[in-house]
C-alpha cells in the first residue's frame, strides 16, 4: 500500500509519515507542488494526502492534473483553511475526503484506512478482527457469525477503535470523531465512558476476542486477545 503525503510543513509531514508507516504503509513525501506533480505523473498511489496551500502552487490544481491523467488514486485533502468553499471544490474535483487541520493521528489513520479499503476492495470488503466482522456498508457487526446489534454511537466507537487497533486513542479524538466537532467544548469527555461500558458489555456477552481497554484516564485502546 503506497501513500503520498504532499505537505510543505516538515514537522507536520514527519508526524503523518511516522503514524502511517506504523500501519505498514509505504510512505512517500513531496513538500512542494512541482515535486508532487512529477510524482503523481510517474507513480500510482493508493492514497494521496494533499495539502491545498503549497509554496509554489495550489493543491487543487494537482487534483485536477491527477484527474486529467485519468488516475483514480484516493485523495484526502488536508487543509488549514476549514472553509466550506474549499471542501465543496475539493470534493467536486473528485477528492475522497476532506480533513481540516488540526486533526488527530487516530483520525488520519481511520480516514486513510477507509479510503484505501474502499478503493482496494470496492467498499465491499468486510473488516475482520479476531472473531469480529464488521460490514461498513450495512454497518452491521457479527461476532462468531452471530449478529450483535449496536446503536449508532456504539458502532461508530467500535469502527474507530478497530481502525486504530492496538493504538492509544485519546478521549478527545474519539469524542470528536463519534459525537462530532460541535460537541468539543463540553467540560469533559467523561460521558463517552457510558457508551464504552455498554459496548464492552455487548462484546464480552458475545464472547468477542477483542476488548477495549481504558488507559490511565487518557484514552482507550482496542486489543486483540
Amino acid at each position, binding site marked *: 500500500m503506497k501513500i503520498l503525503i504532499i505537505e510543505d*510543513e516538515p*514537522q*507536520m509531514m514527519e*508526524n*503523518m509519515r*511516522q*503514524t502511517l508507516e*506504523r500501519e505498514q504503509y509505504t510512505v512517500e513525501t513531496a513538500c512542494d507542488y512541482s515535486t508532487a506533480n512529477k510524482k503523481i505523473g510517474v507513480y500510482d498511489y493508493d492514497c494521496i494526502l494533499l495539502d491545498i496551500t503549497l509554496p509554489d502552487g495550489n493543491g487543487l490544481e494537482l487534483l485536477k492534473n491527477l484527474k486529467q491523467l485519468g488516475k483514480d488514486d484516493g485523495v484526502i485533502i488536508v487543509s*488549514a483553511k*476549514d*472553509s*466550506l468553499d474549499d471542501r465543496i471544490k475539493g470534493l467536486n474535483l473528485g477528492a475522497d475526503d476532506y480533513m481540516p*487541520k*488540526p*486533526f*488527530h*493521528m*487516530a483520525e488520519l489513520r481511520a480516514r486513510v484506512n477507509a479510503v484505501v479499503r474502499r478503493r482496494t476492495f470496492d467498499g465491499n470488503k468486510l473488516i475482520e478482527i479476531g472473531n469480529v466482522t464488521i460490514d461498513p456498508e450495512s454497518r452491521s457487526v457479527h461476532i462468531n457469525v452471530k449478529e450483535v446489534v449496536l446503536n449508532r*454511537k456504539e458502532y461508530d466507537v467500535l469502527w474507530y477503535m478497530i481502525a486504530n487497533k492496538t*493504538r*492509544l486513542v*485519546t478521549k*478527545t*479524538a474519539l469524542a470528536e470523531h463519534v*459525537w*462530532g466537532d*460541535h*460537541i*468539543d*467544548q*463540553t*467540560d*469533559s469527555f*467523561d*460521558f*463517552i*465512558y*457510558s*457508551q464504552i461500558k455498554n459496548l464492552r458489555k455487548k462484546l464480552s456477552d458475545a464472547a468477542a476476542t477483542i476488548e477495549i481497554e481504558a*488507559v*490511565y*484516564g*487518557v*484514552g482507550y485502546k482496542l486489543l486483540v486477545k
Partner: protein
Amino acid sequence: MKLLNHTTKYFALLLIVLISIWAVIFYFAMIDEVYDSLDDGLENQKELIIDAVKVNPDLLQDTDFGVNNYTIKRVDYIGQNKFKDSYRDTLMYMQNEDEYEPIRLLEGAFEQDGKSYRIKLITSMVEEDDQIENLFTYLVGLYLALVLSIVVLNNLVLKKVWKPFYSLIDKLKGFRIEKDEPIKQEPTAIDEFNLLNQSVERLTEKSRDSYIAQKQFIENAAHELQTPLAIAINKLELLLEKNELTGHQTEEVGGVLDNLTLLTRLNKSLLLLSKIDNRQYLEEEQVDFNGLIDNVAADFLDFATHKNMQISVVSNAKARYTMNTDLAIIMITNLIKNAILHGEEGKEIAIEIEENKVIIKNYGQDKPLEIDQLFTRFKKVSADSRSTGLGLAISKAIADKYNLQLKYSFAQQHIFTVIFNTKG
C-alpha cells in the same frame, strides 16, 4: 437640554435683566420729559396771564380755580427771592373722576401797579401709577415678543444653520464600527462644521482601520497558531502510541494533551468569531430550526444523560429563517451546550420552538446572570478551565450577523431566547 434651548434660556435671562434696567431708566427719562414739558407750558401760561392782567385788571379778581386753571391773590409783601417760580406736585379734587388726582402746580409772583400778587397755575398731570402700570404691561409684551422671536429665530434660522451638526450627531449615534463605513459628510458653508466633519471622518476612518487591523491580526494569529498546535498534539499522540511510557508518564502526557486540545478549541473559536465578523459565511438558505434543534439535541443526548438531564423539545410551530446553515447549527449548539454545562444535574432542559422564536431554559445557580457581561468574550461563569468562555459570544455574534435577537432572562430558570425577525 438641546443646544438651541440652552442659548434661548440664556437670552431670556439676559433680556429680563436688560429690560428691567432699561425700564427704570426709560421711566425716569420719560417722567422728566413730561415735567419739563408741563412746566414749560405753565410758565408760558403764567406770562400770558401776567400780560393779560396788565390790559384787563378785572382778571385780578380770579381768586379761585373754578373754571380757570389759575388764581391770583393779592399779598402784602413778597421777599425779593420769592419772585422766583416754584413747581410742585399736589393733589386736587377732580369732578369728573370723583377723586383726588395729581396735578402740577406753578407758584409765582408778580407786581402790578406797585402791588404784589401771587399767582398759582395748575395743569393736570399723568397719573404715575397708571403710567408705571402701562409701562410694565408694554414691557412684558415686549419681553415676550423678544423671547418668542428668539425662539422662532432659533428654530427656523439656527436649526437650518446647525443642520449639518445634527446630521453628524445622528450618524455618530448610529455608527457601528464593525458594520459601517467611515462617516462622510457633505461640505458645508461653515468652516467650523467642515473642520468637525473632517475630524470625525478621520477619526472614524482611523478607528475602523485599527478595528479591521485588529480583527485581521486575531485571524492571522489564530491561523498561524494552528500548525504548531497540530504538530505538538500529533507528536504527543505518537509518543503515547509508542507504548513506551509508564502509567504515570502517560497520564502526564495526557494532561499536556488536554491543555493543548483546549488551546486548539480556543483557537478554533477565535477563528470562527473572526470569520463571522469578517463575513466569510455567504451561503444562505432557509434553515428549518425544528429539524436542526432535534438533531443537535440528539447529539447532546449522551452528554445530557451523563449529567442525568433530560432535554425536552416542544415544537409549537414551524420556525424557519434564512441564514447560513453551519452558523445556525453552531448558534443553537452553543446555546444547548451552555444549558447542559451550567444546568443543574437531574433537572430538565426545556426547549420550546414558536413561530418566531426559540426558547431554551435550564435550571442552575439560583440567581440571574449579569446581562452586561453575559455575551462578552472570555467571560466565564465558573472557574472551569475547560470552558473557553467564547460559546455565548459566538452565538451572539451569529445572532447579530443575521439580525436575530438573542436575549437572556431569569425566572427561576435561566432563559435564553432567540427571536427571529418577521422578515422570514
